């Protein structure tokens, strides 16, 4: 192989990156799969009623989110406080500081129960990110409502505005 050629340098760099990354993924304590898997999903209220607290992060739709809201489940708003203050699901908690958010969750009555995490809409990503952060903190039952605030108000559900 002629390393004077930029083309072969590119091949060499890509090859060594592939080999090292895949080899280290095999031996690391928390490897990830090569192909991403979709989150578990609860599709109906019947399925929710028949299930215990979710194990891990479970995706839910607007109907399930509404049902959980009516049952008094804690909602966590993953958006910045600035957006939270413009309007949010009543009773939801929010904080720009992760440690402060953890304290707020711990101070909630139904600590041992699952909670719902949402952000602005299906494209925001911060609800999923926060769900994983909370899961890493030891919270093992998390409902992820991807439709978020946008879908909530589109369905004329209760909202609180400051």
């Amino acid at each position, binding site marked *: 192989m002629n*390393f*004077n050629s*930029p*083309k*072969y*340098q*590119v091949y*060499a*760099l*890509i090859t*060594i*990156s*592939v080999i*090292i*990354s*895949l080899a*280290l*993924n095999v031996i690391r304590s*928390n490897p*990830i*799969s*090569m*192909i*991403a*898997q979709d989150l578990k999903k609860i599709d109906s209220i019947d399925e929710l009623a028949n299930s215990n607290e979710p194990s891990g992060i479970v995706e839910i739709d607007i109907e399930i989110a509404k049902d959980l809201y009516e049952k008094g489940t804690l909602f966590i708003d993953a958006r910045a406080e600035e957006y939270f203050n413009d309007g949010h699901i009543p009773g939801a908690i929010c904080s720009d500081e992760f440690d402060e958010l953890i304290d707020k969750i711990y101070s909630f009555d139904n600590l041992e129960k699952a909670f719902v995490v949402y952000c*602005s809409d299906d*494209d*925001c*990503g*911060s609800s*999923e*990110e926060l769900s*994983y952060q909370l899961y890493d903190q030891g919270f093992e039952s998390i409902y992820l409502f991807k439709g978020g605030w946008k879908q909530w108000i589109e369905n004329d559900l209760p909202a609180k505005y400051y």
Partner: protein
Amino acid sequence: MNKYLTLFFRIVVGAIFLWASFDKIIDPAKFARDISNYHIVPLGLENTIALILPWLEFFIGTGLIIGVMVDGSIIISSVLLITFNIMIAQAMARGFNIDCGCGLKEGQLVGFEKLIENFIFILFSYFVYVRKEKFLEFFPKTELSDK
């Protein structure tokens, strides 16, 4: 262009890629979610990208800083930076307000600031690629050929 200026550009681009690789290497799962938020990668391949890309960034960053396979590294860095800008631009066009997943600043969102930042590094990469002489480059040792 002055060889010292070219060296400066080379080291800046190298340092950016090296620095950006660390968090992604440590937590590929988070990086995979950042990629997923762009809603552009098909077939669940964000995990594969999240595993390989940080190491590619690590090796090209290291190569640029220590002067090893500079041509190959700068070609890859340019392609990556252009790709990043295309991904950021499409996310902005679709109204996504997401973490860019760049690995440089915690919570940096997609936006014009990031596009301009990447564009400056693309220019730096170009100046390194068209350099007229090798300076503090250790492998390969031969003179530059016409590009």
